[in-house]
């Protein structure tokens, strides 16, 4: 499929500070792509360059086959939703939403209709004549969303739009935005530092670190098959275990831990003798009284276990590494000191790049 938006070898310096380094990324039409990373990882800067608020130091941004580096923001036809809403305080809700249509010289009657439809879409029809200062944060953000969608831009850019909302409202808005994306077939680039938000909403997630993309893939790929240690640690929780590769065969590696135990792990690229990290997701670990045949088992001892409502969190120690296991609600209690085996499938244990 042809790429709709392409960042081609984008580099951005602020003075001597390199914020985005030689970054290449393609986004397809109708796709929902999240740029996920800690603050200062360059994800917002990339969005600002796409919106035209910043210019790349080098590299090219191509939209629909045309380089847009020299195109000013107001001609880019992109709807931007800001974290702080950026509603015009001197205009009513309706006037805010009508603004982009007025800028495009849309006929008055059509503006009326489209504003009404946009308000209906975000379920705020009753608040058309209110001032932004009279709305709650969630309502303001829905107005900002309606304003960014009403002129049917070719791309919608969202810069941490839900960051200022409380948890419950944020989750509702996540589902609302996901629904709008599907219904309207929007192309959305969404910046967030919240990994669960990125996993919930996106078709693909690009994980940023220090101005580079560490990994890009579907939520399932970046969670289940983290390419780097940074991705494994940033997305969800994981157990990282260090070991030396003994031998590799057919995408599987046998890794020897310092304690002498060996684990069988999925490996995309590993060579014998290499020191590597293994990533094991806590919820993929099972506890059992005896060694599980066929698969990995480590002999461990329970140091603590905490009941957290939806799961039981068990801290384990073995001669090589402490481990954390998350067990289903139905599992039995494990008092500290219990000797037990931690077992997991070879598929759930991955060799990741150091």
């Amino acid at each position: 499929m042809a790429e709709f938006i392409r960042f081609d070898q984008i580099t951005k310096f602020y003075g001597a500070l390199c914020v985005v380094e030689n970054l290449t990324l393609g986004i397809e039409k109708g796709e929902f792509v999240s740029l996920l990373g800690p603050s200062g990882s360059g994800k917002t800067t990339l969005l600002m360059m796409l919106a035209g608020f910043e210019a790349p130091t080098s590299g090219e941004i191509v939209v629909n086959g045309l380089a847009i580096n020299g195109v000013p923001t107001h001609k880019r036809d992109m709807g931007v939703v800001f974290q702080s809403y950026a509603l015009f305080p001197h205009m009513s809700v309706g006037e805010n939403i009508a603004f982009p249509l007025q800028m495009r010289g849309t006929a008055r009657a059509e503006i009326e209709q489209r504003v009404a439809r946009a308000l209906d879409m975000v379920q705020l029809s009753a608040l058309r004549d209110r001032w932004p200062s009279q709305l709650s944060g969630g309502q303001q953000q829905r107005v900002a969303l309606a304003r960014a969608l009403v002129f049917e831009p070719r791309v919608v850019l969202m810069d941490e739009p839900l960051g200022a909302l409380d948890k419950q409202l944020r989750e509702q808005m996540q589902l609302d935005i996901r629904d709008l994306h599907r219904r309207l077939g929007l192309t959305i680039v969404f910046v967030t530092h919240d990994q669960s938000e990125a996993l919930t909403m996106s078709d693909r997630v690009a994980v940023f670190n220090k101005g580079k993309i560490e990994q890009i893939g579907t939520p399932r790929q970046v969670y289940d098959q983290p390419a780097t240690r940074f991705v494994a640690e940033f997305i969800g929780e994981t157990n990282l275990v260090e070991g030396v590769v003994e031998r590799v065969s057919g995408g599987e590696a046998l890794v020897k831990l310092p304690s002498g135990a060996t684990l069988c792990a999925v490996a995309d690229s590993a060579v014998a003798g290499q020191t590597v990290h293994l990533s094991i997701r806590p919820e993929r670990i099972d506890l059992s009284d005896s060694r599980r045949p066929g698969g990995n088992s480590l002999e461990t001892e329970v140091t603590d276990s905490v009941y957290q409502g939806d799961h039981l969190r068990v801290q384990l120690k073995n001669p090589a590494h402490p481990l954390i296991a998350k067990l289903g609600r139905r599992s039995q209690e494990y008092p500290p000191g219990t000797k037990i085996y931690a077992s997991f499938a070879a598929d759930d244990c991955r060799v990741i790049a150091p």
Partner: protein
Amino acid sequence: MTRLRSRTARSLLLLAPLFVFLVWFFVWPLVGMMSQSVSDSAVLNLLPRSAGILTNWDRRSAPSAEMQQALIADLRAVQDTQALGDMVRRLNSARSGFRTLMTRTVSAVSDPAGPPADLVSIDKRWEKPEFWIAIADALSPYTDRNLLAAIDFGRNAEGAIEKLPPDQSVNLVIMARTFWIAALVTVACAAIGFPYALIAASATGWKRDLLLGAVLLPLWTSLLVRTAAWFILLQEKGLINDLLLALHVTSAPLALIFNRTGVIIAMTHVLLPFMVLPVYSVLITIPKNLMPAAASLGAPPWRAFVRVLLPLSLRGIASGSLLVFISAIGYYITPALIGGPGDQMISSIIAFYATGTANWGMAGALGVVLLVATLLLYSVYARISSEEPGRA
């Protein structure tokens, strides 16, 4: 309950210096000025006997013997020569000729050999009712003649209000000139101050400090020094003309001083901080992302400015304009030093009446007119600013 009352009393005590200050330096002088403008007791104080008799006079018939005797008695009793001077000045301003008439009459009635039998024997003019009418009119303790004169009106012989003849009516012209100069200065300040505040608000770090410092610096130097500096700069052989000539911008020196141009240049400079600071303080409260948002919604820079930034900064421009305009109306030193005779503003006239002719009544009346005009302007501004939408 008692504790509460004592706390209230204590807090009132803390506010007491403020109240005393306000009353002493603000309310009292203001009331004093206003009552000066309507009080008219210079004649009444010296002529109590005449006042009693003149109330029964019909203002037409020839002055009776009692009236003349009462006036003679009053004038004989006068000891205070300064009060006498005030009275003569007051009567002379109502009817010319009183000065010579009174001088002659006073010296005649105070003759140690005894006063003459009647006033007509001193001067024939005492036969005419006009002089007696002038005295009768001056006997009321309150008058509207100062206030009327301040707006170029007066009372004719019948007591009706009418416009003063053109040779006596300069106040309205000067008032209009004052407002016109103040308006020009306000426009000039807005034209320079708004872009300046925009730049200052968008700058960061030392650049912002420098820009604001450059605005504040004039506020920290004396008004007189600043005006004197302009005096030097604007002269025919001053720095500005030398520079323009050296750059061949002009072939002959421009007339920049002792005319309207100089007054407006100097006043704009002096009053610029009062525009820049309110505008700046409003601009920095405008969220930084509104202009990018407008651009992303398809607004070209100019339209984004007109639709978003300008309406949001109007409040600052309005309060800055009001501040500049009201300050400009009362300007005295700058037009006096840099302006020509045709650029004197209402304050110069007030100063002329107050210090030049000791006519406190006229000075007070012009002050009242200025105060009323300013309050009217302010109420218009308050009305406009309270109607601003989106500020719940």
